[in-house]
């Protein structure tokens, strides 16, 4: 992470518990305006819960038990549900993975976008529709006039995702949280949506928190990356630094397990032995200890803090000095 403007969104030591287990544990990251922060990691590592906490949308079973989240001067974690409702859409918005599940099937898409606009703006229905039409054009939907009057089932998955993006962006929020926004889409449509997000960042200075498990998507669009493992940040770095020189065994193995253009056909890919611990299996030590080729007794006893490796690149590992051994394991 090179020299950055002041953060717009700041997540500090966020801890979320479910049934007494810290499923998100001491997670911190900052996002500046016009930057894309990617949260990556395996299924269940706490990416979605982190994003829901930012939006004040944690499920009933989950409690934020520590840390705070700030948007500029606004302390999000201190907001009441009513105040949060005011902030959502206007200051901060979210798009989910399954567009069809988050749209109302019985309402035209135009009226859903217009309603989102009117939540925060005292305008007539006609003005809101004008705004919606403009928004559809901005997200690259051809023939917006016709589309406004259609129902979600009449649109493809890619178009529904653009409708979701339109709803999320109609009030020009400063922060957009995108939880796997392209996972359900075809690659050609994914490429269009990623390009659209890049445009937002450069033209509107939107700060984006992008949740994904696709390292290709990260490589395409992220400025910074936080790699999460079992609820904690394992490594956080600028995107180029992370891919060029991962400083955490988990990240290095993860990257090595993705097939690349240089692989020999049908050659063995690197794998990570074992599985992610469930929350009731979290011990006192490093949560990756059960699968890590570099593990020592110290790792099993004591949780590693995030160490600074220079240039804003940080890694939560006791044995960063032995990372070269991982490169050999992975090769």
């Amino acid at each position, binding site marked *: 992470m090179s020299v950055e403007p002041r953060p717009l969104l700041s997540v500090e030591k966020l801890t979320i518990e479910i049934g007494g287990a810290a499923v998100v544990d001491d997670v911190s990251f900052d996002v500046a305006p016009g930057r894309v922060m990617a949260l990556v990691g395996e299924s269940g590592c706490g990416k979605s819960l982190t994003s829901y906490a930012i939006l004040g949308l944690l499920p009933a079973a989950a409690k934020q038990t520590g840390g705070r989240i700030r948007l500029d001067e606004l302390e999000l974690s201190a907001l009441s549900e009513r105040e949060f409702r005011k902030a959502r859409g206007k200051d901060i918005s979210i798009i989910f993975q399954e567009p069809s599940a988050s749209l109302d099937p019985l309402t035209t898409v135009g009226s859903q976008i217009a309603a989102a606009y009117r939540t925060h703006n005292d305008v007539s229905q006609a003005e809101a529709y004008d705004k919606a039409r403009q928004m559809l054009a901005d997200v690259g939907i051809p023939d917006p006039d016709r589309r406004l009057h259609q129902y979600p089932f009449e649109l493809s998955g890619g178009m529904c995702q653009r409708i979701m993006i339109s709803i999320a962006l109609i009030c020009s929020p400063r922060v957009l949280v995108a939880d796997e926004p392209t996972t359900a889409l075809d690659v050609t449509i994914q490429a269009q949506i990623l*390009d659209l997000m890049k445009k937002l960042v450069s033209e509107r200075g939107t700060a984006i928190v992008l949740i994904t*498990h696709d*390292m*290709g998507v990260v*490589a395409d669009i992220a400025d910074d990356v936080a790699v999460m493992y079992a609820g904690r940040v394992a490594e956080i770095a600028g995107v180029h630094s992370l891919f060029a020189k991962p400083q955490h065994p988990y990240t290095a193995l993860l990257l090595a397990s993705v*097939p690349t253009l240089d692989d020999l056909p049908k050659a*063995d*890919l690197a794998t990570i032995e074992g599985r992610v611990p469930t929350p009731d299996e979290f011990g006192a030590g490093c949560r990756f200890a059960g699968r890590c080729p570099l593990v020592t007794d110290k790792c099993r006893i004591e949780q590693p803090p995030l160490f600074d490796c220079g240039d804003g690149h940080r890694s939560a590992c006791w044995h960063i000095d032995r990372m070269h051994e991982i490169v050999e394991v992975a090769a």
Partner: protein
Amino acid sequence: MSDPNAHVLEMRDVAVHFGGRGGLFGASGQVVKAVNGVDLTIGRGETVALVGESGCGKSTLSNTIVGLQAPVSGSIRVGGEEVVGADRRKLNDIRRHVQMIFQDPALSLDPRSTIGATVGEPLKVRGVAKGAALKQRVGELLTQVGLRAEHADRYPHQFSGGQRQRVVIARALALEPGLVICDEPVSALDVSVRAQILNLLVALQKRTGVSYLFVSHDLSVVRHICDRVVVMYLGRFVEIADRATFFDNPKHPYTRALMSAVPQADPVVQRGKERYVLSGELPSPANIPSGCAFHTRCPLATEICSQVRPELTPRDDGARVACHHA
């Protein structure tokens, strides 16, 4: 399989349509031409990848091969035996040799059966193993796919989506079939698990000579695992080539667009690469554009493209491509 010299799979001019022909909705319904005039041969120990956008007909084609869907025309031979029009008993026999791994593990597992019962079912039904031997084989299969033998007593809901997909794979592998159709088998899996499953599929192929028809939209996975690639667009094959030819010299404009759209897991490569972003989306297969079906999105389209449908024609390097201008 009956004829050891026959191809594992041989399809000739296969078409699969939905709706439109009598039935509840009568002839007024639109005909969805999901698969149209497709030829495909798969050899022993070969992996053929089938790629293309959502709705282009990949699953329909897969279902037709295993006999879950009847074609309106064409011939499908599995190990030399004709599937089309075969009676139930013959189909049943053919199915033993062709197994399928579906896209969505949640839909292919019975929530009320333990995973041990699920994985062991084909072995039991075919009388391959029973009692302690069955239990041991199930344990081996589970271990092979990265689960544990003790997991046999658990139910699907006690597993993650990725683990459930491993159960599905274990069951498909139980009878060591000649051809496994893998319909997006790793799309729902985490990256590290994905690598394990891909390694497993490759290892199994090396050991048993099984062939795969591997349906995927992830070209880096395809490049890793396949010997040959088939690209499908709106129910037709538009390019077929060996792996090396395909990746070194993709020819069809749609293929090139797909390749450019798949993000590479390397920021330097990904940000430096030439972009070739397609506009628009896949047209409806109930209303396939005239001429070359890709002409509505193709950057190279000219007048002839909307009038004359290009046939698959062989090129110097062995690839076959359906395009007037590539």
